[in-house]
């Protein structure tokens, strides 16, 4: 399999705290890869480094063999990495359509063309009939879908999803699961997911990577990781992976 | 030859002594004014830290305090120090009333709305002062006006010294109050982390009220102490707001110690530059330092966090 993303020996310090220590991993093209770990493990920090918001103290990030470590976030987006955020960063005062259009405008200067592309993305996530609603009035799931559609409109090859399942009901999560599977297979978009909802992770992932206190402690298929003693130890007091 | 050298030597050392004397006098005056500045601006750092409001009308309330002191002096001949005793409770109350009626209404709005709202309030107060008392500059007289102390080569008006001492006493009192009393600790807790404070059972509305009130009162005293070495006019407000903001940013938003440090620094910088250059250049150098601090160390020298 072809590597689309390679994280090589990344270390990140914040003052005296080491958030990430010599973390290395790869994400295969076309796969769904998940990054899990207890709170404070450094998952979002790693995403922020891949995305370009933070620079690592040591190490490199390679996207399609290109070193993107030092690039700013907008340049990384242009190269094909999209992102959704834990805090759900939608443009709250714009309509759904306007939100997604700003994403589509990456590849065109024509506003009407951006509009039609945006409508396509909205159809995929199922928000087409809410296209003129102001985003701040929507439900959590709908806002997440706006963010997802906006990221999709930038035509990414790799999509970084930061805790997209958080705060959703069981039914919503099941629905999201199917949607993401479709996005992965039909649109050929590699998914790199940070998640806490382990049921979700186990059902969708081809590969699971586990971080604890900034260090990679396990990697493998969902079954392998679930039965890994180190992983279970790290999660003592948290969810029971073996049962999910 | 030797006598020439000796003469040169004596002249040189004499010059050094005189220069030192002048320098000393300037530095001292800068520090004295700086101490008053610290009291002037400490309220702003509290308001920023606790209420998170860019209080653009801060200086205008100080302007009102200066006018209050002036009219007290004109109509009742109240000496400066007595007027402080009147002004403190008056402005404490005024601050609380303002917070309850006006400032409290915008607490939930985005930062920029708060800023523009307070700018509106500032304009309003300026207009009010202009309308009520015209644009004429007034002067507050200090009882110690004609008394000097000798420092090095020059004289410093006793007003500076005494007002500095009073300012430092009030400042320390405020500092101790914040450290030792329940209310003070509650205020400091709220400045650090509002959610946590709420959860600990602190009545946050009361904190906002008292913080704003105390901050207003502090700034009012500072303004009264500053009045005799400055002037009173409807537009001093903006100057004082900008100066306070500079000091607070320099020292670090939310840091009480920072207000002291910032005040002293600005006081000394102003004193030094006004000796060498005109008053416009003095202002210019203060602004340039301000810009440099904003750009390279927005946290300030002792600041705790940058709020955006």
């Amino acid at each position: 399999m072809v590597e689309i993303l390679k994280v090589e020996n990344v270390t990140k310090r914040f003052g005296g705290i080491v958030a990430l220590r010599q973390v290395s991993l790869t994400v295969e093209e076309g796969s769904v890869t998940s990054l899990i770990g207890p709170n404070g493990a450094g998952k979002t920090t790693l995403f922020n480094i891949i995305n370009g918001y933070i620079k690592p103290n040591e190490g490199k990030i390679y996207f399609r063999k290109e070193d993107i470590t030092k690039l700013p976030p907008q340049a990384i987006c242009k190269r094909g990495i999209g992102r959704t955020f834990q805090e759900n960063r939608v443009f709250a005062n714009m309509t759904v359509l306007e939100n997604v259009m700003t994403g589509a405008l990456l590849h065109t200067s024509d506003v009407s063309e951006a509009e039609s592309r945006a409508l396509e993305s909205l159809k995929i996530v199922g928000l087409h009939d809410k296209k003129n609603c102001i985003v701040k009035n929507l439900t959590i799931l709908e806002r997440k879908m706006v963010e997802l559609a906006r990221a999709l409109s930038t035509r990414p090859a790799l999509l970084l999803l930061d805790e997209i399942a958080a705060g959703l009901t069981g039914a919503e999560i099941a629905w999201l699961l199917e949607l993401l599977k479709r996005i992965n297979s039909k649109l050929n978009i590699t998914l790199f997911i940070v998640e806490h909802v382990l049921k979700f992770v186990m059902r969708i992932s081809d590969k699971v990577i586990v971080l604890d206190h900034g260090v990679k402690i396990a990697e493998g298929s969902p079954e392998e990781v679930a039965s890994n003693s180190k992983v279970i130890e790290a999660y003592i007091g948290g969810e029971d992976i073996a049962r999910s | 030859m030797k006598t020439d050298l000796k003469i040169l030597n004596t002249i040189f050392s004499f010059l050094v002594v005189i220069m030192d004397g002048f320098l000393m006098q300037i530095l001292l005056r800068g520090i004295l004014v700086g101490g008053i500045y610290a009291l002037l601006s400490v309220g702003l750092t509290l308001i920023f830290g606790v209420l998170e409001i860019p209080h653009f009308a801060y200086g205008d309330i100080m302007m009102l305090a200066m006018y209050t002191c002036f009219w007290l002096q004109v109509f009742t001949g109240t000496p400066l120090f007595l007027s402080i005793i009147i002004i403190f409770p008056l402005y404490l109350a005024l601050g609380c009333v303002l917070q309850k009626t006006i400032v409290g209404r915008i607490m939930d709005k985005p930062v920029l709305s708060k800023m523009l709202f307070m700018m509106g309030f500032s304009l309003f107060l300026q207009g009010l002062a202009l309308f009520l008392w015209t644009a004429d500059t007034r002067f507050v007289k200090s009882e110690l006006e004609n008394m000097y102390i000798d420092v090095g080569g020059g004289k410093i008006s006793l007003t500076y010294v005494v007002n500095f001492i009073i300012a430092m006493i009030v400042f320390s009192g405020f500092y101790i109050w914040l450290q030792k009393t329940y209310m003070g600790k509650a205020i400091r807790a709220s400045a650090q982390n509002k959610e946590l404070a709420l959860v600990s059972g602190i009545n946050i509305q009361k904190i906002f009220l008292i913080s704003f009130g105390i901050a207003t009162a502090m700034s009012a005293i500072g303004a009264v102490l500053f009045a005799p070495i400055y002037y009173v006019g409807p537009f001093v407000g903006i100057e004082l707001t900008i100066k306070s903001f500079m000091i607070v940013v320099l020292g670090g938003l939310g840091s009480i110690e920072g207000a002291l440090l910032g005040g002293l620094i600005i006081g000394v910088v102003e004193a030094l530059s006004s000796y060498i250059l005109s008053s416009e250049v003095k202002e210019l150098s203060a602004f340039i330092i301000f810009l440099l601090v904003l750009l390279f160390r927005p946290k300030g020298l002792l600041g705790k966090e940058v709020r955006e």
Partner: protein
Amino acid sequence: MIDKNVIMGKLNWILIFVALIVFPFVVQSPLLLHLAILIFLYIIISEAWNLIGGYVGQVSLGNAVFFGVGAYTAALLYLKLNVNLWIGLVVGIVFSAILSVIIGYICFRLHGVFFAFATLAVAEVFKLIFIIRKDITQGPMGVVLPYRGDSILDVSFASKVPYYFLTLAFSILAVFIVYYLSKSKIGYYFLAVKEDEIAAQSIGINTVLIKILAFMLSAILNSIAGFLYVTYIRYIDPYVAFGLDISLIQALLTILGGAGTVWGPVLGTIILIPLLEMFRIYFVMFSGLNYMLHGALLMVIILLMPQGVINITRRFIKWLKS
């Protein structure tokens, strides 16, 4: 049916345009002409602030820098080097544009209140420099553009009518720029940066570039307004040129009318400027009242109508049509 509405819409615009053209010939009062000129001038600077403050959400309190540079460049080049004022206009625009990139690049590292204060400080610095360097700028006394008889080249006219058309033309330009941008990709990017810079970056927007672009356009418009001001009033000094008044009124007019909309600043200007000017002229004895009015208005708007008057106006117009 649709065709008829479109034609009716266009007809409205044509009527307004004709009215504007005919106005100065029909109305003889110099006061009304003066008010109109002021309105057009303020429309230019409020649309300018609208771009950076309304659309991109960066509250600049230092736009006076560019206003002053535009005014002084034209005036000083003319008086000291006999450079034609129109060339001075262009040079002023170039200076302002370059300055805006420099100032923007430096100040946009800051956000919110810090950014606002930094721009304010920059304006104050300019004001002080212009006061101090009397040798170049004639200091606090200011610069006077003498009237040397009617001449288009000298931008000098005895009648107000040419100034009316000059300011009208540029105000139309200002509104048009904002209108055009609002419908374009850049307009969407402006709003995205205002909403959430981090999210904007994640979808490929170079937020610094966008902010500087808006700032530069803002600067150019302010520079033009400065030129128009000095050629009409025939006087400029550092307090007026770089003062907080100019910086603040741009923001106030935009917010009053509706920040981030095309017609908001126009509406705000039409409502407030005649009011303020009448106050200034007729109620000099009640000086201070216009400040109080400014201030109270700003407070009320923020509190009750943060979207500006334009929303109410739109609903009113809809109601009229139904």
